[in-house]
């Protein structure tokens, strides 16, 4: 029942995507515009199919229908309801299913948002692009038809022996409630970048390469970026909660895969402003959008193919070559299209002075580009080197930290000065005036850090520049709210400054928690105490709690009189032991306890204590970035794009606020 329903639904969605793509392509290439509105219908059918398949899989998981091979693999009668529900995305096939559900959702939202413009070639090309992406992802899950089977068919059948019970999801994925939030949010971000990518391809295909497509996709990009950011921060929180050594970011290949599109996406969010304002950097912006999307595919490849060693690689399969092929196709198509449209992409503008807003954005892009490059290089370099001369090397945290530190500090510096820089050019006097108070805030935070015992050049620079950047962002927000009241908090510029404040919180937290960590392992008998960084730990009690799926061993330790209960969970089916550290968080510092080894009889317990300053600022920073993103999506003060050459006063066309005027630099459809 679930099998038939699921694979039928996927086949339906696949067929709808193929029909959608064929219909739109026919309508566009043959010039039959009456076909184009059908795209919306097919989008709904694709969403219906994806939703039905999702429901079928959840139903199979909830009813423990082990005739579905996927349920036999990740389901178990002992898994608690929440983790049984989230088991859907605990392995490859289900993750792809969730991905397609989100993708089909975006498809419908785009088709609905632009429902009055479905015959506009720009919108039709964008939908066509999304349908092609949907064909690929639904195709991955196809059940065997005519000798072809998708490499990630979630509804393969299984013949369970009598009394069969599955192992349940990977223990790491049933030990923390964040499994219900981190992957879906990350997917909303990842998949969301399909929309700007689709419009970029549409702009290239139609030749309408002016700023129109940027403005159409501005909010979509921010939306995707916001979810990706939030998903990454939640992922860091999750690892911090699970790992138990104070780590939250290990530069693991899978983490790198998620940060890569974030880096190029962030670069794009900034450089797009140069194009909107000055009409420059067209090729660059197109490339960034396409790179961001293709990096989400590359990230999925890295996560799912098992080519790289990672703690996160929860599933391995033969899907690798297919994803790599799709990645190559995207790169070839976009590079080809950009080359083909080369002449239309040349922009007349110029940057007058490097010390200007656009100069700062260029520097920003250089840094984000370098950052993305370093992360990609460090991730794949061991593979390349092994292919070249068979040498095996590992690249990990020390490399990435050393490379990321100067880049991060430069970015903080840019965040401090860029909001104060005017477009085109500036004078020293203007800068001295605008940056004076932000600089004092930077100096103040530097001195405060020094007085509270911080030492070392890199972290001190981070605190000083962080204060400077926060000052610059605050200055902009204060000036805007003074002028416009609450409206000074919304809109891209002002919301962006709130995001900057969040970034500063995160940056300061990164610097502090990385530089001033203290850690020790203690062997304690019951009633015994130890001290670390001024905190007293006392081992009080040891308990075991037995439940259906696991045996929980917990140690009660009081930290300065407050009780912490770090635990170890032994999962019964797999026998795997997963730590569940406990943390006492304050704004100043975190004390985290993890069990290294359990007491036997009256023997000692070995616990590891980690004291790290300002961890909480990381999560606060993430929340502030989220709030800032929402504020940026809110429409701010309307400002129409500025023309490259303003018309003399007498001859300016009359303002007609109801319909936006077509933009001069954008010839409408040359197809």
């Amino acid at each position: 029942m679930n099998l038939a329903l699921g694979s039928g639904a996927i086949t339906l969605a696949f067929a709808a995507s193929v029909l959608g793509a064929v219909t739109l392509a026919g309508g566009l290439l043959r010039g039959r515009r009456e076909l184009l509105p059908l795209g919306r219908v097919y989008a709904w059918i694709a969403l219906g199919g994806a939703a039905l398949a999702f429901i079928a899989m959840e139903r199979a998981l909830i009813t423990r229908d082990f005739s579905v091979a996927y349920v036999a693999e990740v389901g178990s009668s002992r898994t608690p309801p929440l983790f049984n529900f989230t088991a859907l995305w605990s392995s490859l096939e289900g993750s792809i299913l969730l991905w397609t559900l989100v993708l089909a959702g975006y498809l419908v939202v785009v088709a609905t948002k632009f429902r009055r413009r479905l015959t506009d070639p720009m919108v039709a090309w964008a939908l066509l692009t999304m349908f092609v992406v949907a064909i690929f992802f639904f195709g991955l899950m196809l059940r065997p038809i005519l000798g072809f089977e998708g490499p990630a068919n979630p509804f393969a059948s299984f013949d369970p022996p009598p009394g069969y019970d599955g192992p349940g999801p990977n223990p790491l994925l049933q030990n923390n409630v964040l499994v219900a939030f981190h992957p879906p949010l990350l997917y909303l971000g990842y998949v969301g970048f399909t929309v700007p990518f689709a419009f970029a391809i549409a702009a290239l295909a139609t030749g309408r390469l002016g700023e129109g497509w940027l403005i159409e996709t501005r909010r979509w990009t921010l939306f995707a970026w916001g979810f990706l950011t939030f998903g990454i921060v939640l992922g860091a929180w999750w690892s911090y909660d699970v790992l138990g050594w104070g780590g939250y970011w290990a530069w693991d290949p899978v983490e790198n895969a998620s940060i890569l599109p974030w880096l190029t996406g962030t670069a794009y969010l900034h450089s797009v402003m140069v194009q909107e304002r000055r009409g420059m950097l067209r090729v660059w912006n197109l490339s960034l959008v396409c790179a961001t999307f293709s990096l989400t595919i590359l990230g999925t490849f890295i996560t799912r193919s098992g080519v790289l060693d990672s703690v996160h690689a929860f599933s391995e399969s033969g899907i690798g070559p297919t994803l790599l092929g799709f990645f190559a196709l995207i790169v070839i198509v976009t590079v080809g299209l950009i080359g083909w449209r080369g002449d239309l992409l040349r922009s007349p503008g110029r940057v007058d002075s490097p010390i200007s807003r656009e100069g700062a954005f260029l520097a920003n892009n250089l840094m984000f580009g370098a950052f993305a490059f370093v992360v990609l290089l460090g991730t794949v370099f061991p593979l390349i080197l092994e292919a070249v001369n068979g040498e095996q090397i590992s690249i990990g945290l020390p490399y990435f930290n050393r490379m990321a530190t100067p880049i991060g500090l430069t970015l903080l510096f840019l965040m401090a000065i860029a909001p104060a820089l005017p477009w085109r050019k500036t004078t020293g006097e203007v800068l001295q005036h605008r940056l004076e108070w932000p600089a004092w805030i930077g100096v103040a935070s530097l001195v405060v850090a020094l007085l509270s015992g911080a030492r070392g050049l890199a972290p001190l620079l981070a605190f000083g520049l962080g204060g400077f950047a926060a000052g610059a962002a605050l200055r902009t927000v204060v000036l805007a709210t003074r002028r416009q009241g609450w409206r000074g908090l919304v809109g891209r510029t002002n919301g962006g400054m709130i995001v900057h404040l969040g970034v500063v919180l995160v940056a300061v937290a990164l610097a502090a928690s990385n530089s001033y960590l203290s850690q020790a392992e203690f062997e304690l008998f019951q009633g015994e105490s130890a001290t670390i960084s001024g905190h007293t730990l006392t081992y009080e009690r040891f308990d075991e709690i037995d439940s259906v799926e696991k045996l929980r061993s917990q140690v009660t330790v009081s930290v300065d009189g407050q009780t912490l209960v770090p635990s170890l969970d032994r999962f019964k089916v797999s026998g795997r032991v997963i730590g569940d550290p406990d943390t006492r968080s304050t704004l100043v510092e975190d004390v985290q306890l993890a069990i290294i080894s359990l007491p036997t009889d009256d023997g000692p317990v070995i616990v590891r204590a980690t004291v790290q300053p300002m961890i909480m600022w990381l999560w606060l920073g993430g929340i502030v970035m989220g709030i800032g993103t929402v504020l940026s999506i809110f429409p701010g003060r309307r400002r129409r794009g500025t023309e490259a050459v303003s018309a003399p006063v007498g001859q300016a066309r009359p303002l007609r606020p109801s319909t936006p005027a077509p933009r001069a630099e954008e010839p409408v459809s040359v197809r």
Partner: protein
Amino acid sequence: MSTDTRLRTTVSWTLIAIVAVAALAFGTLDEGGSTTNADRVFDLARSIRCPQCSGQSVAESDVAIAREIRADIAVRVDAGESDEAIQQVYVDRYGSSILLTPSGSGLEGLVWIIPIVGVAAAIVVLGFAFSRWRRAAPAMATDADVVLVDQARRRGG
């Protein structure tokens, strides 16, 4: 700007520079923040791959071998061995891929050099672009542009 405010701004920025440089110099040179043995153990543990795990360092992993290596590092640090000597012990035992920091020499060194060369090259290219932009005349509307604008206006009504 009046002479008064200009003077005030200059004084203010001079103070900013002095305090910032002094604070950074003190914070960098002061020994109060020098690394303790525990810090060294942690940093070394983060630089050595756990031989039995997938992509984790011995600082992150709690499998037996990782704990053993951590304990061994602590003993060696307390005995006064240098960071390089301790890392070499593990390289001799497991091969150079045990280190999570690629060495700076040979083909491996490229992973350090390429990004630096890349950024330097990008800065040079940008520098050339700026000097070209400075020399170039400001963009004027060509006849074709004027026609386009005209067409668009007419279509817009």
